[in-house]
């Protein structure tokens, strides 16, 4: 069980750390084994930052992440290595995940060297093949090749296979299929969904609501580093409460229905992020809006309190 408690992250803006730009603010949720949790947000929402903090690729500014009760920030050396045995990640750009200078197998080599030094060559090879087959890859097709000789789908599978070599309990999947071709992305998606049947907890980070809805048990809606709605996926999608969630759902293009005509004055035209931008501008300009309180509108469904109107429980339709 991986818990995020009031997790916050600020990036240093400008030189000498003067001026901090908040990226994630007081985020709390947990990733349970055997479930997929979707973390949904638009660009700049801080969703990838959360993933990187879980993977200890970025330090936490305040709050904490615990894994089986232990504060992840305190892990160093061999303890951190043991954490990585249990918690692993797959990233957005499959080509960036592979060192272009080396063959794609290097991702396995590193694990072999660091974790399986005492394993015989034959045992290792058997383990590797099992893992590759588990993600639907034929070892002969992918081993010994360079990343640019393989397709994006194959590469993402290789990365999942790499994680499966370890005894992982949590997998952080950061936009893993957004760069894949339509015809192959659903296969990788199904692969991730299948992991929960092995008892793994998956954090599925995405900007695409349809993917989140397809795959996950729990959904977290994030905007500008703040959680706006969180709960069981069926409830969040079936009975969205926050105006932002509703706007997202109304805006997502669908295959079998058209966008509802825009109501006059609806914010979609100017868009929520259309404020002129500039790094650090928000931080030094107006004061930050406070992190809203989460209100439970129905069992297992929490919504951020809005000024415009209190979230109401019950089905609107």
């Amino acid at each position: 069980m991986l818990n995020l408690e009031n997790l916050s992250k600020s990036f240093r803006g400008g030189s000498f750390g003067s001026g901090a730009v908040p990226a994630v603010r007081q985020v709390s949720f947990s990733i349970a084994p055997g479930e997929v949790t979707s973390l949904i947000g638009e660009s700049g929402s801080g969703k990838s930052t959360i993933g990187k903090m879980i993977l200890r690729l970025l330090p936490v500014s305040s709050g904490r992440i615990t894994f089986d009760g232990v504060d992840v920030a305190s892990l160093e050396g061999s303890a951190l290595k043991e954490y990585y045995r249990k918690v692993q990640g797959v990233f957005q750009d499959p080509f960036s995940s592979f060192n272009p200078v080396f063959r794609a197998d290097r991702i396995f080599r590193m694990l072999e060297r660091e974790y399986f030094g005492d394993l015989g060559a034959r045992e290792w090879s058997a383990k590797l093949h099992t893992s590759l087959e588990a993600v639907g890859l034929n070892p002969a097709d992918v081993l010994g090749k360079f990343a640019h000789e393989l397709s994006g789908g194959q590469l993402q599978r290789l990365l999942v296979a790499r994680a499966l070599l370890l005894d992982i309990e949590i997998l952080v999947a950061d936009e893993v299929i957004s760069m894949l071709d339509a015809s192959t992305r659903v296969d990788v998606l199904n692969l991730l969904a299948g992991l929960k049947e092995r008892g793994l907890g998956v954090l599925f980070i995405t900007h695409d609501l349809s993917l989140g809805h397809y795959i996950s048990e729990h959904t977290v809606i994030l905007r500008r580093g703040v959680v706006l709605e969180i709960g069981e996926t069926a409830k969040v999608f079936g009975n969205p409460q926050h105006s932002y969630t509703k706007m997202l759902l109304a805006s997502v293009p669908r295959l079998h229905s058209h966008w509802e005509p825009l109501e006059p004055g609806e914010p979609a035209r100017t868009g929520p992020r259309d404020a002129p931008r500039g790094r650090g501008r928000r931080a030094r300009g107006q004061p930050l809006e406070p992190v809203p309180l989460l209100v439970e509108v129905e069992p297992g469904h929490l919504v951020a309190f809005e000024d415009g109107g209190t979230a109401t429980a019950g089905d609107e339709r």
Partner: protein
Amino acid sequence: MSKDTTTTKDDTAAPTEEGNTAPRHELVYFALRNRKLVIGLSIVGLLGLAAIVAPFSARSNPDAFVGPPMQPPSSSYLLGTTYFGQDVYSQLVNGLRQSFLVGIMGGGIAFVVATAVGFTAGYRGGAVDEVLNMLTNVLLVIPTLALLIIVGGYLKGTSIVFEAMFVGATAWPWAARAIRAQTLSLVSRDFVGLARLSGVRSWRIVVGEVAPNMSSYLFLTFILLFGNAILISASYDFLGFGPPGGVSLGSMMNLAFAWNALQLHIWWWFVPPGVAIMGIVGGLYVTNVGLDEVFNPKLRSL
């Protein structure tokens, strides 16, 4: 790297079976076809060869007084003789040797410092980066030659090793800055994150994952540092701070100037060393550009 640069549109053909081994063949193909690279390498190679065989091809000890003074180039004195009657050709090939040595050693030291600073700053980031960056920027502003003036003034004669160390200590900042920038961009790539997730230690990530991705860039940096070192040491020697007794391309020009070669029209005394320096440094620069064009397809076609 090659992936980003060879396919600019999303619409290029998917990787192909034939494409598997192509990039390397392509590099060789473009290398051989690149006129700048071929010309630059030939010049540097020929001069380098002359420097290596200097002890055998030189007619005499460069300092020995072999004949009548101020002889113009002739069959007996290939490049004439100096004001004192030393053989210019022998001095030249020995000077070449010295220049290459200073270039390789000085450029090498500067390169090591630059990579150490650049990698550390770029990979560690944070406060370490701030401090190293500040140090780099400070040293970047102090002109090498000015520093040389006060150092040289207080030293009684120097050696090639000293010159190399001096160059190494002063010439690295721009290279460190460039390497830092490259490292920063590479560290943000996911394969570095993945290496960390695999429990690989930091120095191993830098050496094993980051550095190989900028090997061509590092090589180009070394070439430029090499050339710089030769130019700096030539100025150093021209000011008369050079190793006593030894003959370098810079000290040849210094002596020629000091003994009125201009007024006495002994042009063969100062023209050859300058041509040699220009040949090495220019050859290195052109090689650098040629290699850049080979490594970087954007620059290739035109």
